């Protein structure tokens, strides 16, 4: 059984996929306000691993320094493709082989072009985050690609959608078009004071989404839906209002839609990252 374990600033979210007689399950472990030190998180995780007998897990990596990019390449030969990746990594992701770890994955081919996703992250950050866990992870996923995977595995996978995962102190934006992610960006300095977005917050996010949408190529700006997940999606009204800001129908994104899993009603929106990580480990 693979666990997907997502550590946010305030809590640890985990998802376990079914295997044999063990049903799928998910859960949240709150981290007290007065002690969110790495030592405390390490202790909580150790207790969790011991209690659940976790042997295999995947976790999403996020934070300053984790960069993702999707690009198209017209190269067919693998060495030429790697040259393209190296160029994009160097100039677009500012990849430094002495400092960062780079991972890339060719996605689907459209016409003569192959879409590729590449992610770079600082080695120091990877080691620091891995050090919170008592065991080695089976994989380390980037939170952005995890969110993209969660969408692609859902009923929204083949549509043109923009999804915003918004927690109290972190935000991820992913645009998916015809089964391919075309934009993946982490939004820095997020500070969501209330679960229900105020007028002021809505105005800020309206501008943020418009700016981010402009990163899309001209021919990809026509989207079908706006999806919202994370703590902001605990209030469904937020999704509708934010969707209207960019002239799209807004809905909350529940990754467990159509999946049999023990989860409190309405809380599925919190788990797209953990769920995608659990899927990644299978």
């Amino acid at each position, binding site marked *: 059984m693979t666990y997907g374990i997502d550590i946010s600033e305030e809590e640890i979210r985990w998802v376990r996929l079914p295997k044999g007689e063990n049903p799928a399950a998910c859960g949240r472990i709150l981290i007290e306000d007065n002690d969110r030190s790495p030592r405390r998180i390490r202790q909580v995780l150790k207790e969790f691993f011991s209690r659940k007998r976790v042997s295999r897990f995947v976790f999403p*990596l996020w934070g300053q320094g984790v960069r993702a990019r999707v690009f198209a390449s017209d190269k067919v030969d693998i060495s030429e493709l790697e040259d393209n990746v190296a160029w994009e990594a160097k100039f677009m992701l500012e990849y430094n082989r002495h400092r960062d*770890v780079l*991972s*890339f*994955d060719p*996605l689907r081919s459209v016409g003569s072009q192959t879409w590729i*996703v590449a*992610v770079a*992250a600082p*080695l120091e950050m*990877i*080691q620091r985050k*891995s*050090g919170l866990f008592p065991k*080695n*992870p*089976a*994989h*380390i*996923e*980037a939170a952005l*690609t995890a969110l*993209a*995977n969660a969408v*692609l*595995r859902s009923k929204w996978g083949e549509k043109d959608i923009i999804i915003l995962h918004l927690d109290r102190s972190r935000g991820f934006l992913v645009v998916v078009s015809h089964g391919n*992610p075309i934009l993946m960006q982490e939004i820095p300095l997020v500070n969501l004071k209330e679960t229900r977005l105020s007028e002021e917050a809505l105005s800020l996010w309206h501008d943020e989404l418009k700016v981010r949408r402009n990163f899309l190529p001209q021919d990809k700006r026509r989207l079908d839906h706006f999806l919202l997940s994370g703590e902001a999606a605990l209030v469904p009204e937020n999704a509708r209002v934010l969707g209207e800001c960019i002239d799209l129908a807004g809905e909350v994104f529940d990754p467990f839609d159509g999946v049999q899993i023990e989860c409190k009603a309405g809380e599925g929106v919190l788990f797209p990252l953990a769920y995608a990580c659990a*899927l*990644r480990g299978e």
Partner: protein
Amino acid sequence: MIQIDLAVRRRPEKLTSLQFLLLFLGILLGTSLIVGIGLVLQWNSLNNLADEIGELGVKRDSLETLEAEISRYKDLKDSHSELMLAMEDARKDTERRLDILRLLRTELEPGMKFLSCRIGPDSVITRCLSPSNVKVARYLEELSRSGLLRVIESEPQGTRQGLIEHRVLLKIP
């Protein structure tokens, strides 16, 4: 599904009890094996040393025998040298006595007769007969001139066969 993997493998932080036990047993076994091999090698080297000591003992006995032989040889050599010196001294003494005896006979004046002589380490006593005391005087003068003898005294002892018998005392210088 996008398959991005940023995992970097790290070493396990702690040894499990089983790993620790296996490591301990491995170290114990390895140490015992090394010590055992060391003891066997040491035993072999000790045996070799004992053999060498035995051989050295035999050589030492042989050398002691040789040393005794050499000592005896040196004693013999010294004795031989002493004998050779004694022989040389005796030969010189005999030659000296013969020279003195020859001198005593050859220097006699006509008419004189040599009776006897006794040669000591540093003196000679001789007896002779002479028709006159003048001839004895000339005889003593010739002996002194030879340098081998020095006349101390000459004393007439009476007459024998119509000649005067003289007893002469000479000093070997």
